[in-house]
């Protein structure tokens, strides 16, 4: 379980995250929506201390990651996470299977000889076959996202963080990724935190949806209740997004 308490991040004297508190339960798909540049990715990165918030706590299975001082301690908590970056963040100098198996060396005790096998298995899980030796620049946008997802799940993490998983993809690829997120959650029994402004994705697969505006979660509820929200901002945001 992830407990976020009074999380505050300030950029150039502006509070991007303003005293945010929320609990993310094991096994759920928790989706954060909101306008661009509002701090959704900052929230996601703060959870694993890729960004240092000014105040607050992020307690992951009883350990406050923000209070940890050494890289070894932080790494010990981070190994429970898989992270799908907005642009994939795949390493251009490596091919597909080397990218997928990259973290195995650092995060697991798997024998090096089995890396290829693990990579192929994870690639199959995200619906990719026969791409193991392809270069990253030979892949389409949707394929890159899937390879990045395979890399994020390669070490069997307990939590997966998705940063704008469908941004920049065509509707069909978006649909595929949306289904994959749902599938990963069910098959791997992981907790997923998704940051997106894809309202369709948020309302289709989430257990709960949080709407971020002006540094605060203006509403955290089930997709159904979010759809019928009485909050003016939430209503406007959802209706304009659908238009």
């Amino acid at each position, binding site marked *: 379980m992830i407990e976020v308490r009074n999380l505050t991040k300030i950029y150039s004297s502006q509070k991007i995250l303003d005293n945010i508190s929320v609990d993310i339960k094991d096994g759920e798909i928790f989706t954060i929506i909101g306008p661009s540049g509002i701090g959704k990715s900052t929230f996601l990165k703060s959870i694993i201390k890729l960004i240092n918030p000014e105040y607050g706590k992020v307690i992951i299975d009883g350990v406050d990651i923000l209070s940890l001082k050494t890289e070894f301690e932080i790494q010990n908590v981070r190994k429970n996470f*898989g992270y799908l970056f*907005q642009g994939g963040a795949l390493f251009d100098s490596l091919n597909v299977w080397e990218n997928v198996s990259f973290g195995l060396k650092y995060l697991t005790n798997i024998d090096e000889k089995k890396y290829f096998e693990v990579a192929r298995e994870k690639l199959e899980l995200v619906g990719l076959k026969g791409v193991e030796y392809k270069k990253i620049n030979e892949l389409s946008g949707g394929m890159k996202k899937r390879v990045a997802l395979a890399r994020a799940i390669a070490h069997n993490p307990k939590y997966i963080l998705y940063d704008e998983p469908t941004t920049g993809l065509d509707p069909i690829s978006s649909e595929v990724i949306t289904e994959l997120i749902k599938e990963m959650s069910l098959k791997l029994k992981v907790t997923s935190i998704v940051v997106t402004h894809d309202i369709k994705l948020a309302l289709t697969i989430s257990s709960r949806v949080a709407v971020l505006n002006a540094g605060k979660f203006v509403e955290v509820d089930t997709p159904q209740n979010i759809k019928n929200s009485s909050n003016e901002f939430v209503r406007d945001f959802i209706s304009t997004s659908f238009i």
Partner: protein
Amino acid sequence: MINKIGKITIDCAFHLGRCYLMIKKMFFWFFHSKLEKREVFKQTVRVGVESIGVVLLTSLFTGMVLALQTGYTSKNLFNEPLYVGTVVGFSLIKELAPVLTAVVVTGRVGSNITAEIGTMVITEQVDALYTLGTNPSTYLLIPRYLAFLIALPILTLFANVIGILGGFAVSYIKLGISSTVYFDDIFQYMEVKDFIHGFIKTFFFGFAIATISSYKGLYASGGAEGVGKATTDSVVLSMIFIFVIDYFVSSLLVIFGIT
């Protein structure tokens, strides 16, 4: 005016401090993480192989022009081309080969490294390293530092040899100096410490290029334009530092009797 000086001072202190922390972190991980041998090899080949052609060409023509100028100047003064081998040998081994090799490597590989790391920062590949159980110090910096510290001295050795041979070619063909005279002029006056003088400097240059190119890449911001600016800054700053370090390290070596 005072405001401007103040701002420059603060900027310098900020960058020096941040650079110090980067180096400190790099040393910490050097002793606390497993060496990425494959990356070290890859980067060493990259620094060495990518630069060798330009380094040899630069050094060859430097040796040739040194021989030509020395030969004709001494011919004008003494009616005979004297000490051509000595001037070419000393100039190359103590100064020109280490400095020119470092300058060429900066332009060829230093810029490349800044652009590569800068792009990795902007495309979140550096953040990805943290989420995959490693960090930029272990995976990016240490292999590049080691690559420069291994490849630059080797490249300088090649530059020494090729420069001296280039000087010999001109001495023999244009000035009519025999090989015995040319090489005697070098080895009669040159001692091991002269060679060490030039060789030691390559490690300082390698460290400086690795530091500046990595630092500029790691703190690049502002998209493609930012990476471009960081790359230019990296090359300019590295070149300035090579010349500054050259003077101070030479002075230090003189104090220690390695002249």
